[in-house]
Structures are given as structure tokens and as C-alpha cells.
């Protein structure tokens, strides 16, 4: 079953300039999708439609069969979103508090919150840092906390906007490991990047956006050959005719 169904999605900036022009897209449950494109191609705008942070000017977005416009809360519970700047999405004074923020918003019981937060922190390996102030975490740890904060709400889909920005090698590997593990556990993953290198080896599908339209869509090894025409750098290994190696190796 397709968990994300988008038909004829159009969105304009307040100044009238179109940011998304007639997007048709379905994403299957349990898949690992990369959404790529140059800066300003409309990636972030598209992502914000998935959980009702933006509502379509025209067209429809359905999550798990329910139109986002009708029930934004359902969409937000189903699609967890990890934003690019980890620092400005961490709300809590401690690691534990932050992971509990979403579940508390959902008005869960104390025990359920407890269980869910424990599990989420354990999944991203932050269980030992539960009382730490988020400010004292490393870049990779902050990003993992942002993921845990979303994970604690038990979403079916996790959307990550530029999850590797500003991370060192170790940070990239940590975050990537958790993304891959989550996918293996059955969570649908949508990763939005402008540089394919770090994540291409793990994806099942690559979608390239250009000027608010889907320019290419298909298996990563095929689509990547056309990447440069649409403003996305082709990883060096592909240029030489090979395959991109996993960063986890």
C-alpha cells in the first residue's frame, strides 16, 4: 500500500512565484526514498506538505489514505519530520525532556511516554545521556536527538531534511547507521539531500526535483546517471562507471 499519495500538488510563494508545479507522487510503505535537487528546487516545500505544515494551493496530499487538509494531526503523527537545523528544533532542557515533548503533546499517559522515550533514546544510542543539556551534545548527537524526538511519537514515515549537513565523518556514519536500522525495522524513510554521495548506496528510489517539478524518478543507479542535468552532482564513483560504496563500510 502507498503511504504517501500526492496528486496535482501546486504551491506558490506569497509573491506568486510557483514553488511546486503539479507534483504527482506516491511512496510505498516501507521504502527508502531520496529526494534530491538543487537549492530552491522545492524540496523543503514538498516535505512540509507531507505533515500539513503547508497546505496545498491546488491538488491533494493523502497520508495513509487520509487527506492532510482534513486531518493535519493524523498526518503529523504518521509522518515524523527531522529538520535540518537540529539546534532550533530541540525544545527540551534535557535530552529526556526533548524526546518526551512530542508524546506529551499527543496527551499520552505517563507510562506510555516513559516506554516510548526510553525506546527512542535507546534506538539512537542516547540512553546514557538522558540528563544532559542538549547544548552540550556534539553535532551528531544533536541530530540523533532530533531523530529520537520524532521516533518517540512512533511515526510510520520519517522525513529527514539534509540530515548530514555540518556533520563530521563520525557524525555522518552515526546518523546513517540509525537511518538504515530504522528502515530495516519497517519505517518508511524519505531523505532530502542535495549531495547524493553519503546515502545513495542505501536507497531504493531516487527522485530529483527541479524548479518545482519531478525531473527524474526511478531506481538510484539509473536516475543518478541523469543527475547532473538537473543540478545535482553525480558522485565521483558513478562518473567513473562504478557504484557508490556505503559510508558504513
Amino acid at each position: 500500500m502507498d503511504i504517501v499519495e500526492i496528486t496535482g500538488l501546486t504551491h506558490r510563494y506569497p509573491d506568486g512565484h510557483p514553488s511546486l508545479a503539479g507534483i504527482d507522487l506516491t511512496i510505498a510503505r516501507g521504502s527508502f526514498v531520496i529526494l534530491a535537487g538543487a537549492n530552491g528546487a522545492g524540496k523543503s516545500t514538498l516535505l512540509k506538505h507531507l505533515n500539513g505544515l503547508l497546505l496545498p494551493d491546488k491538488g491533494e496530499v493523502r497520508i495513509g489514505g487520509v487527506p492532510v487538509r482534513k486531518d493535519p494531526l493524523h498526518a503529523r503523527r504518521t509522518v515524523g519530520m527531522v529538520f535540518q537545523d537540529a539546534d532550533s528544533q530541540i525544545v527540551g532542557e534535557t535530552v529526556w525532556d526533548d524526546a518526551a515533548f512530542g508524546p506529551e503533546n499527543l496527551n499520552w499517559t505517563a507510562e506510555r511516554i516513559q516506554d516510548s522515550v526510553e525506546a527512542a533514546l535507546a534506538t539512537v544510542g542516547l540512553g546514557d545521556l538522558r540528563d544532559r543539556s542538549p547544548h552540550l551534545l556534539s553535532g551528531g548527537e544533536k541530530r540523533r536527538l532530533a531523530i529520537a524526538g520524532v521516533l518517540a511519537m512512533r511515526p510510520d514515515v520519517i522525513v529527514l531534511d539534509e540530515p548530514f549537513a555540518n556533520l563530521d565523518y563520525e557524525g555522518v556514519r552515526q546518523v546513517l547507521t540509525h537511518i538504515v536500522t530504522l528502515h530495516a525495522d519497517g519505517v518508511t524513510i524519505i531523505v532530502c539531500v542535495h549531495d547524493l554521495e553519503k546515502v545513495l548506496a542505501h536507497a531504493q528510489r531516487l527522485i530529483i526535483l527541479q524548479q518545482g517539478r519531478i525531473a527524474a524518478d526511478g531506481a538510484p543507479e539509473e536516475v543518478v546517471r541523469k543527475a547532473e542535468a538537473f543540478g545535482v552532482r553525480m558522485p565521483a564513483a558513478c562518473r567513473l562507471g562504478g557504484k557508490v560504496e556505503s559510508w558504513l563500510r
Partner: protein
Amino acid sequence: MNENSTDLRKMVLASLMAALIAVGGYIAIPVGPVPIVLQNLFVLVAALLLGSRWAAASVAVYLLAGACGLPVFAGGGAGLGHLFGPRGGYLFGFLVAAWVVGRISEASRQRPAAEIAGMVIGSLIIYAIGVPWLKTLLGISFGKALTVGMYPFVPGDALKIAASWLIVRSVRPLVHAGMRPQRALSPVEPVE
């Protein structure tokens, strides 16, 4: 966007302005004999940008957090000791000033002359509460209280009012931008 998210945005902004006011107690620009402490500058800026209600809420949250022992007051000490201490009057003055300056700005529809006059009034309010407080606490004459608690800071205040106005003029468009994907801000910004 809907009512809720505008309110949420105001609340987040008011909280961050409160944090900025707290930080303003720690950072000073070394100019002349009396360094310029940025705290009341941020109070004025908050009043103009947030309006009376949210600016007062912002300062109130700052004071409440401080009163309960959260370490938001600069210069050491904690909790009620600070609020009852020599600087307490100024801190309470911030609360009144934030509301009054915000109110003046709203009533005048953000006319520059009115806003600058409002900030002058706001600064005077801070002293009107702070100086008598200092006088009572130290048991000194009114003239001495003014010499210690007001005159040295007046040049700095004039400068802060000018700076606040310049800052507000340039930052205000950001407040009213709304929850938007903007063309000016590219979707992938460098992360700070």
C-alpha cells in the same frame, strides 16, 4: 496560516526574547567608564517587536524563572535574593516598561517619533521604579541615589534607544513574514 500557529510563533518568539534579555545581562560593550549592558536594550526591542502583551509576558517569564531560582540573572546570586536586592527595582521596572512601550507602539501604529518617545518614557519608568528602590535599600538621599543609580547610565540609554530603533526598523519585517517559504531564504540554508 491559522490562528494557532501565529500564536505559537509569538509565544516562541517571546520565550527567545526572554532568553535574549537574560543573555543581555551577561554581555556588555566596553565603551568609556560605564560599559553598555545590553539588557534594557533587549527589553525595549522586545516591546517594539512583540507588542505590549507578549513583551510583558516575555519579561514576566524572565522574572518568574529568576524568582524560582533558575539561573537567569547575571552577576551571580540567585532567586529572590536578586529580586529583593539593589537591582530589583530595575528588574520590576522592565516589566512595566515593556508593557507601556509596547502599548505606545501599538497605539501609534508604529510611528517612528512615537516609538522613540515611547522608549524614552520606558527608560524613565525603569528609573522611576529602580532609583527609589535603591534609595530605600541603601538608605541614602534621593540625590545620591540618582548619582549612583541613574546619571551614569543616561548617555548609554540614549545610545541604546537609538540602537533599538535602528535594529527594530531592520528586523521588524522578519516578524511579520509569517510562516512562509520565502524566495529570499533558500530551502537549504547553511546551518549555524
